[in-house]
């Protein structure tokens, strides 16, 4: 009896020790690609176990790879035909010449990545609902066009996209590959503007916006994460907190190397135009209660005076003392010249110091 008990206990211990997990990827299907076919059919597998970020801080978010499906060249509709969008809904805006597009949070909350082609631009809109960060990525990496998908992994509660060409994993906020054959590569940012639908439409009435006929069945218009946006104490995954500002305050962050400077909407209550210096570079910021944008000034531009001229009826946002007017992308809309958009993005406050040594404007 005693012997049997020992054998049973040993067997149970072995079973317990055998608790394990595995992950594998296989290709399925063949023939004519369907609407949700892999846009990168020649993709390779990423077998690298080396990460440039602490792997024990990389977490499985739950849905699994492609469990949140990225969109590929979604159908765009005119502003008039946009469904479910209210004036206060946030959009990420992109402009190339007269092709102006809005990618609404209502859809991005469910897909997180949109791979789009606008003329010769290969753009990936990457949006993390948990950090509120929306960034435009150039989909040409090392001269090869790729598309991005949602890996289902999170680092500091932030989206980890993967590129389908090499299956390398990327950190959205760091803007670099953190695992795979492309580890260490930086992504080229493409300027986006985040604002509410009413402001965007006022600036660019000819804009198009993602249609809801995405090929996926989702409850667009219903926010999937309860009161996460407004609840400063609600986090689904661990991440460092910085008490200088409320965790979920939306801030505009300018990034230089491993450093960031954060600007709040309240900074623009007394003046809609701010000139600032960060890491020895000169910046011009423009904002109101609904948008913030920043530009890196060269020496000549830094000598100019800028005036806020946005009146909600056109895309003119700034005017310099030489009479040149600029839109929110820094393009001259009267006169000549171009303001260089800074490397920056919008996001929840907590996510900026989680990745960068951060100072707060006006501190």
């Amino acid at each position: 009896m005693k012997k049997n008990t020992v054998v049973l206990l040993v067997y149970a211990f072995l079973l317990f020790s055998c608790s394990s997990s595995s992950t594998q990827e296989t290709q399925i299907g063949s023939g004519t690609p369907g609407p949700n076919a892999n846009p990168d059919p020649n993709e390779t597998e990423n077998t690298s176990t080396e990460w440039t970020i602490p792997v024990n801080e990389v977490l499985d978010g739950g849905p699994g790879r492609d469990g949140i499906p990225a969109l590929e060249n979604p159908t765009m509709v005119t502003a008039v035909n946009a469904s479910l969008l209210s004036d206060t809904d946030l959009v990420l805006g992109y402009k190339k010449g007269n092709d102006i597009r809005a990618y609404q949070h209502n859809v991005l909350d469910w897909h997180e990545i949109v791979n789009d082609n606008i003329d010769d631009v290969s753009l990936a809109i990457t949006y993390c609902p948990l950090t509120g960060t929306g960034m435009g990525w150039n989909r040409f990496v090392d001269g090869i066009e790729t598309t991005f998908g949602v890996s289902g992994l999170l680092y500091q509660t932030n989206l980890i996209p993967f590129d389908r060409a090499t299956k390398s994993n990327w950190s959205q906020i760091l803007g670099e590959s953190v695992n795979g054959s492309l580890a260490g590569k930086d992504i080229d940012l493409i300027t986006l503007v985040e604002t509410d639908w009413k402001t965007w439409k006022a600036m660019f009435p000819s804009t198009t916006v993602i249609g809801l006929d995405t090929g996926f069945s989702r409850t667009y218009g219903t926010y999937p994460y309860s009161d996460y946006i407004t609840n400063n104490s609600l986090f689904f995954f661990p991440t460092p907190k910085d008490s200088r500002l409320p965790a979920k305050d939306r801030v505009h962050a300018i990034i230089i190397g491993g450093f960031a400077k954060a600007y709040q909407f309240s900074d623009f209550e007394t003046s809609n135009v701010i000139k600032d210096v960060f890491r020895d570079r000169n910046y011009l910021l423009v904002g109101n209660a609904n948008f913030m944008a920043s530009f890196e000034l060269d020496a000549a531009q830094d000598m100019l005076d800028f005036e806020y001229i946005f009146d909600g009826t056109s895309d003119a946002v700034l005017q310099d003392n030489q009479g040149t007017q600029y839109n929110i992308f820094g393009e001259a809309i009267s006169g000549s010249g171009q303001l260089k958009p800074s490397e920056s993005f919008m996001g929840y406050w907590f996510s900026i110091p989680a990745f960068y040594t951060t100072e707060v404007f006006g501190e």
Partner: protein
Amino acid sequence: MRIFVFISIFYFGQQTYSQTCCSGGVPLSNNLGLPNEGKGSFSIGLNYDYNNLNTLNAGTEKLNDDSRLRITNSVLLSLGYAFTDRISVETLFTWVNQKRTISQFGSENLTDTKGIGDAVLLLKYAIPDILGTSSVVNLGLGTKAPLGKSDLTSSEGFQLIADLQPGSGAWDALGWLSVSKGLSFRPSATVSGSLTYRLTGENTSYLNNTSTYEFGNVVQANVGYTDQFLLFNTIFNPGLILKYRKASYDKINGSRLPNTGGEWVFVRPELSVLLTPNIAISSRLEVPVYSYVDGTQLTPTLRFTAGISFTLKKKELIILN
């Protein structure tokens, strides 16, 4: 009478005891409710449970998306012993294999975990004939012990979320009540009901000791009808059960976790066969007829369970010894 009690408890003690937000967990209670066959009797049950979740719901609306598949394969071993004709104890040990498959963009991504799951200890008290002849009321109180691992990492090394873990990492309290009564106008038939409540504990070492996680409390009720017939000199017991299950939302760090919790109604046809007076095999199929989930979640599509149970009476134990 013993056959009646056996059938009643075997059928209506079948409580789904899911430990995941999407009902994909181990059905610990599926094997709870072994019969009290009298003082000194020893019962063993071995069940296999297959749980398929391939339906994506938003509230009660079924979304046209079958790209996500969760399958839980469980093996459940239950051991029961009756101290008296009324007081008995039951333990349940599990082994679980969880599979998460995403079929999207021409690829299939599978995440697979397996290992020993949590275990249940249940003390039971039987009150026969309290509702008239051929009736039995069972009361049970128990606990679920976190034997299973709750900190498995993927093969790549990153931490997996709670509902992919074999164990919950928390002690739970379990209350169980079942009632059954034979019909006087049809002695072979039984109507039964049962109620289970799970009060969940908190896993305080979730995600590398950085967070706490608590699965939602679960209440579950079954009502059903079983009958029996003789075929090939063997007793067959078909049954039809209606099951209601309500799971509260999960909590992370004390805050409500969206897209967890819901309410379900299932229909469960069952069939048990008494191979000998001491050995029975059973099978059951569980199909949802109503599903409401908080937010958007995978919800059960199909569940199948098959098992065998043995009862060793005191007299037989003496012979064996």
